[in-house]
């Protein structure tokens, strides 16, 4: 278990992270979400002991990072934002070095390096010089390094940044795979990623925690905001008039021109039910409906709302999963 208690970090007089607390249970995948510059990397650096905190503590399996740094570091595998790889080394050589650095016994090194190479599909490039590899591969080498020493906790700082969509999918699958054996904390500013792999998220903004909750609970908070995306052919004023005439539709938030005569409308709606009468009305009005879909209010709305509102405080360090957000809807 990782317990983060009232962690604060000042860079000079500038607060990077202020009084954050949360707990990560064993075998949990926790998403650490926030816009750029929110303090994600600073927090992760403090959890891994790279950076001392100004105040507050991190307890990893009961060991205090400030008092027993070596014990804590043995339990943690860390992939920083920029993979800490030496460009002049070969992949295998680097991993062997990293295993030695982490104190993996000599007899076990080969086995662990092979395991890490295989997990990240690096076996084919193991003899190549890291400096000649692409960004995606370098990221994977950094990831492989984090697995060495079989750490109980994996801390991954933006593991998918700079990867192509296929690689992003692979990393996500890998995280899900690793979650069976490790406790994972990973940071990202991509929401789809959190939704795909995490059970619980911590949302942070400007160094303060905005929410610590499960994804379902967070999504429930903003339910009621439903949008319909409609692609229809016909004159814009006419289509707009028809949309407004249908009962249950709200404001038209956005109109994006598509091909000539075709526009895509984003409409607020009370429920899914509005789709049927809307299509019927448009067809009756001689406007061709090309596409219609509902846009579920999602983590994105939660994220946008939380990162522009008052800070969240949880005196219990989030021991209960129920939503405790107290804030006015704006």
């Amino acid at each position, binding site marked *: 278990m990782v317990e983060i208690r009232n962690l604060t970090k000042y*860079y*000079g007089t500038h607060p990077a992270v202020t009084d954050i607390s949360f707990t990560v249970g064993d075998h949990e995948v926790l998403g650490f979400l926030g816009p750029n510059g929110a303090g994600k*990397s*600073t927090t992760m*650096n403090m959890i*891994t*002991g*790279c*950076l*001392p905190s100004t105040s507050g503590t991190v307890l990893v399996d009961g060991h205090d990072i400030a008092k027993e*740094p*070596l*014990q804590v*570091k*043995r339990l*943690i595998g*860390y992939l*920083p934002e*920029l993979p*800490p*790889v*030496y*460009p*002049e*080394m070969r992949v295998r*050589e680097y991993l062997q*070095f*990293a*295993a*030695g*650095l*982490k*104190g993996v016994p000599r007899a076990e090194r080969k086995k662990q390096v092979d395991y890490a190479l295989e997990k990240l599909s690096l076996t084919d490039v193991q003899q190549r010089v890291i400096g000649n590899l692409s960004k995606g591969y370098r990221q994977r080498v950094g990831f492989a*390094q984090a697995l060495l020493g079989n750490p109980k906790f994996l801390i991954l700082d933006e593991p998918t940044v700079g990867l192509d969509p296929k690689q992003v999918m692979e990393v996500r699958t890998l995280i899900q795979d690793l979650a069976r054996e490790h406790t994972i904390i990973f940071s990202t500013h991509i929401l789809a990623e959190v939704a795909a792999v995490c059970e619980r998220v911590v949302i942070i903004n400007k160094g303060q925690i905005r929410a610590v909750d499960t994804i379902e609970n967070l999504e429930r908070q903003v339910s009621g905001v439903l949008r319909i995306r409609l692609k229809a052919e016909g004159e814009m004023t006419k289509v707009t008039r028809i949309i407004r005439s249908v009962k249950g539709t709200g404001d038209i938030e956005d109109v994006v021109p598509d091909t000539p005569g075709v526009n895509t409308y984003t409409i607020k709606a009370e429920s899914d039910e509005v789709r049927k009468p809307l299509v019927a009305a448009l067809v009756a009005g001689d406007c061709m409906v090309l596409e219609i879909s509902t846009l579920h209010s999602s983590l994105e709305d939660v994220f946008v709302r939380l990162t522009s509102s008052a800070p969240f405080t949880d005196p219990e360090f989030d021991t209960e999963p129920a939503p405790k957000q107290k804030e006015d809807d704006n």
Partner: protein
Amino acid sequence: MFALYKREVRSYFCTPFAYIVSALFLMVFSWSFIRSISQMSSSTLSFQFPAVFYNNFFFFIFLIPLLTMRTFAEERKSHTETLWLSAPIRVWQVVLAKYLAVVTVFGLMLVLSLFYPLVAFIKGSVIVSSLICGYLGFILWSLVCIAVGMLCSAVTDSPILAAVFGEAAMIFVIILDSFAETQFVQSLPWLSSAMLWFSTQHRFAAFAQGFFSVSDLVFFVSLSAVVLAWIVIVIEKRRWSRG
């Protein structure tokens, strides 16, 4: 810690670095060797090797920042220091491993330079005791210079700046003696004696002339240790104040 030491040594030899610096070192060495031979008077019976060290020490010393400039600055620049900051290893172990690696590379360079005494030995005669003393003095002096060079590397994230700082520090090391002997400093006896405590040149000169003294040995080793401790403090301090 051994893993780190091994990586450091390898990184010198996997890149052209060690080779080019060694080549430069040998070039300077052979130049001063040839010059010493050509200046030998016919009355001298044996070749004085320590003179080669002593007359040209400042050339050698300027090579040291080239070896040390990357030690910490490069790691900071390429963000690889997080690897050892997050590993179960203490900062002093990292500093010591890197220090020993540079000392090893420098030691290998000195081994290459043994070629010249060997030639002199075959073709003429060499005072072996003073040769050994000269090498010893040079090694001890470079222990301090390597530590100072690494300290310069630890305060910046640019290897080039680290080299410039290193050269400046080396100049300071060299001129400390002559500065302590200027009339102005001599007029303040406490200052001049304090400077002489830390000055290295006269101690090296003693070695170069074939005098071995335990107090000088202790001086060089302990000064290196103090500078290494300083590096640990610099790195720890940076962790506290910045990212």
